[in-house]
């Protein structure tokens, strides 16, 4: 049996490593937004080339998400999913952390156009 101290140190170490790994996945992968539904690429937007903000509706069998696109950034502005987590994820303008709507299986992520990014790391 391990002591309480052992477990506290172990869990704190895992928290520190997890928090640190955040910095490694913060590099900006580019300015193209890729919209996936059920793993299928349904839209490819060049965010740098957007001059007028516009909205985009994405329908799934379970509901609808509305994407707002502005110069250099994209977000989910409305969703009728059960948790609304995708709306709270806010604007996506840099980094490899995607916007995810689990109930509607929708993913919005940034890409530069080459293979550099999380795909290359995760495989």
């Amino acid at each position, binding site marked *: *049996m*391990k002591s*309480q101290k052992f*477990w506290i140190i172990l*869990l704190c170490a*895992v*928290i520190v490593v*997890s*928090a640190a*790994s*955040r910095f490694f*996945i913060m590099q900006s992968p580019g300015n193209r937004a890729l919209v*996936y539904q*059920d*793993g*299928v690429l349904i839209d490819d937007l060049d965010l740098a080339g957007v001059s007028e903000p516009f909205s985009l509706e994405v329908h799934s069998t*379970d509901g609808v998400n509305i994407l707002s696109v502005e110069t250099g950034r994209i977000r989910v502005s409305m969703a009728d999913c*059960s*948790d*609304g*987590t*995708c709306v*709270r*994820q*806010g604007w996506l303008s840099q*980094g*490899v*952390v*995607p916007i*995810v*709507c*689990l*109930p*509607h*299986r929708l*993913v919005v*992520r940034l890409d530069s156009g080459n293979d550099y*990014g*999380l*795909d290359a790391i*995760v*495989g």
Partner: protein
Amino acid sequence: MRIATKKLTIMAALTAAALIVFIIEAQIPLPLPIPGAKLGLANAITLFALFYSQSGQQGTVSFKNSDVLIILICRILLGSFITGRFALLILSLSGGLLSIAVQIFMKRIVTDKQIWVCGAIGAVFHNIGQIVAAILISGTPAIAAYLPALIIIGIISGTITGLIAQAALSRMKSIYTN
């Protein structure tokens, strides 16, 4: 036979309790911009059942690992029927099953005072199972970028639910020994 009936009753009561907690929690999403992040209070019931062992006049009632698995699967299936979130069922199942497997293993190496550790590590693996399932279903490996945040949230929420189970079990023990 008497013991079997008593055990079945307690299992049903625990499943009902877990279901209530699960449904209430589903109505109050955490205000965090992280998919899949939640307190997971129903896991407190799973932990309670896993570490539950009570001696009384009618013999000892304790749950086998398979009994705890039954409680968990009933809760996940019924919870999904009641909340109507079938899209999330496969995520709940993969997270729940990976978590229970790890917690059954953890049970051998922790003491009565370390149930919270079991809860924390179980919650981390729940989140890992869920993310892996989400990656496989959506075919989008980029979702893995949420793993660090979900591991940290798992440790915090799992410690809380684990401490709840631990406190409930130690209260029960003092009631039955007095």
